[in-house]
């Protein structure tokens, strides 16, 4: 608060701690408050708020309680530039019940921060055969909802080499608010194992200041398949085939069809075959692949988790 000579003091404050931190282009609502030692009511009086660009608007004190007069919410629109910007609140000299009050001024610093961006990476195939090409999808989103079309997402390997790059689409992904996306062509390493690659989005080209974004994704890189494992899953009690059973052998996967059969291509080696379907159980089974093979698994029916799970009909 400042005051000029020639009158009693008026104390100006705002409803939020200062300085305000506001992302570029965003707005923040605060209330201005005025008080003086004799608790005068200033409802109906106006306070002027001068934005960093010099524009001034007035706001009326609407409430008075406990010796403090308060405006309704005043929206401060952060400029689209980083740094500290000052909004000046000015209450002109005025007189109440014969007492003259001096002009009061409060500078409200607004620290403008960058908007954030974030990433999503999806449709990552797994496993991927060593040395083969594959495609992923990646998208970027601005917290401000800014159109990111034309921006680029890069994928880097664990050693920091750029493995691929994609330019964001003109339109957001369906069912999203503003996720701009791209396909990215990649090539798997020549050796098998789990790799974790990073994706990054540089936001320096945007008109509104944004921070960039990073994320990561994992790919299981495997040897080329040599054999086919055929798995048939049947119900233990009835020998009926069970469709839609998810099968896993480490990174390898398959799903049974209507006949309860799935075929999974994989290289020689020892695996643990696991299955999952709600309402069925079967223990993991060790499998050694040295040639094409067939495995039949009998799964036990367990009642699906019912609403009254503590009881079974």
């Amino acid at each position, binding site marked *: 608060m400042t005051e000029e000579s020639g009158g009693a003091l008026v104390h100006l404050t705002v409803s939020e701690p200062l300085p305000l931190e506001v992302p570029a282009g965003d707005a923040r609502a605060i209330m201005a408050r005025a008080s003086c030692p004799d608790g005068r009511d200033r409802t109906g009086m106006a306070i002027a708020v001068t934005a960093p660009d010099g524009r001034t608007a007035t706001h009326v004190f609407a409430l008075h309680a406990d010796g403090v007069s308060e405006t309704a919410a005043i929206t401060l629109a952060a400029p689209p530039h980083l740094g500290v910007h000052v909004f000046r609140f000015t209450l002109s000299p005025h007189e109440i019940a014969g007492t003259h009050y001096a002009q009061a001024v409060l500078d409200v610093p607004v620290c403008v921060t960058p908007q954030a961006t974030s990433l999503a990476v999806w449709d*990552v195939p797994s496993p991927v055969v060593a040395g083969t090409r594959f495609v992923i999808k990646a998208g970027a989103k601005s917290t401000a909802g800014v159109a990111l079309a034309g921006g680029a997402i890069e994928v880097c390997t664990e050693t920091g080499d750029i493995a691929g790059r994609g330019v964001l689409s003109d339109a957001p992904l369906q*069912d999203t608010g503003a996720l701009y996306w791209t396909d990215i062509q990649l090539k798997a390493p020549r050796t098998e194992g789990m790799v974790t690659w990073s994706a990054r989005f540089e936001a320096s080209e945007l008109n509104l200041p944004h921070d960039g974004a990073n994320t990561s994704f994992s790919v299981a890189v495997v040897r080329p398949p040599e054999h086919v494992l055929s798995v048939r899953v049947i119900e233990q009690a009835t020998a009926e085939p069970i469709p839609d059973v998810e099968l896993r052998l480490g990174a390898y996967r398959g799903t049974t069809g209507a006949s309860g059969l799935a075929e999974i291509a994989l290289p020689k080696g020892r695996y643990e075959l696991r299955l999952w379907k709600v309402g069925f159980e079967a223990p993991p089974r060790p499998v050694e692949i040295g040639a094409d093979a067939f495995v039949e698994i009998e799964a036990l029916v367990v009642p699906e988790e019912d609403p009254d799970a*503590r009881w079974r009909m």
Partner: protein
Amino acid sequence: MSKPTRASGKAEVNRRNFLARGAAAGVGVVAIAGTGAHEATAQNGNGSIKWDYAADVVVIGAGVAGLPAAITARDNGASVIIVDENFDIGGRGILSGGRVQVGGGHALQQKLGIKDTPDMLFNDWVRFDHSESRYADRDLIRVFADENVPTYDFLIENGVEFIEKPIRSPDASTVDRIFVTKEWHIPSQVYAPRRGRNGSGLVRRMEESARKKGVQIFLKHKMTSIVREKHNAGRVLGIVTIAGSNPVNIQARKGVIIATGGHTGNVNFRRIFDPRLTEEYQQACSPYVHQGADGELAAMDIGASLWSTANQTVDEAAQITKTRHIGCRWGYSSLVYEPDSPMFQQARATGLTVRDWQNMIFVNQNGKRFWDETDGSHGFFHAAMAYSGDKTKLNGGGPIWAIFDADAVTREKWKPEPPHVDRDGYFFSADTIPELAASIKNPYQKAPISGAALQETVNRYNGFVAAGADADFKKPTPLYKIEKPPFYAAWTTPILHDTLTGIRTNTDSQVIDIRGEVIPGLYCAGESQGGFAQHGLTRCIVFGRIAGRHAARRQIAETSGAR
């Protein structure tokens, strides 16, 4: 058979006059009761009480314990008033599955060829090797066993109908004893129709019978205290209720029966038994009922003791459960309020019913995974309630959120929108995981979830899916990545269910005080009664009947000097 009376005027007699008149008559309390209840007064800490109504027996709670208590009291010649704070009867029973664990060799068991006896029933429910029977009060179990067949007969006599097929139970029973009542035939009076809420048939039939027999039911009367002659001494005289903003005092000439349904909804009270159960844990059957521990508190105010408290924290029972319907505040496994339910406006969403827990991960209030999502054991609950590192919240684990993606929505065939989800604090969606974290705002989520932390959690889990093994929590065969936008966060904080401990009673359901003495005229039955951890309905009905019978006959007992 005497009937409830309403005071014609609020004749006031102070305590001194009350005792003097009794002494002059030479018959003490009974003589005063016989002069007309409205003339009696009692002290309740703040001076004299003026009775607005009077009955021989006053039952607090029109649920699974209160209704049989009232009917049985009426059958034994008493006038009866039931009060209930709710706008309708039933308590939690109206929303239950209607599974009644009744055995001992009753007619339906005989018809179905199920061999059972009271002794077999007793032996099952005192088993040391089952959590629901281990800590039972065996005196209560003995009476419970002996009263099962009469309780079945009582239900049939009062119009309750059973589906003639037993349900196999994993509880302490070794023979089939769970029989399901038929759902009430008027959907709007079921509150969660078409969802197997067969308990509606149990309580509605008992309500029907109670009303026919002349039981008066005062709805929207909330009991605020139980009136005893002296604070911790003497007989119980009646209750104080609030109806709207009006106090309504009801004299009980013979007895007050607490049948208020338990304490699960009272955060302060439930933390007596488990300090972890802080405010974020909601309770099954809310918002229809809230189990506020009203009966326990009122009884303890006048000296009552708790009993068999070990039952509340056995790590196998249903005092806490996994949500099955996520993205809504109350997602208890068997309870869904559909949009046409009279309760839907309060419930706000049906929730998304989970078919396969592989379709999501659970994170705590810090955005970290904490357990295998496919597990629903007490190990899961302990992990969910573990200290999360939040120095401002040492007890309770905070909200638990299910995190999933668009592919999970497709697999589950969900529509992630109202009326299925409650977007006002219990369901969120966003284009990226960091934005999803930032979007989560809920009264129990005290600090925002870090976008970086949630992203790291999801990326790590996706790596486990790619590798085919969950290195952190051994989720069996982690199947699906969480990667396809948009992303979702749904409330899936474990939800509380059973009250498994409560007020101490003897085998007549008379409340016992902290010195081991009977509180004359005070009874307790149902989930507010301690000593028996059986999940479900039958212990409520059995001890409700016992309480009603003993209270109705009590006048004779008192004049002979007995309790």
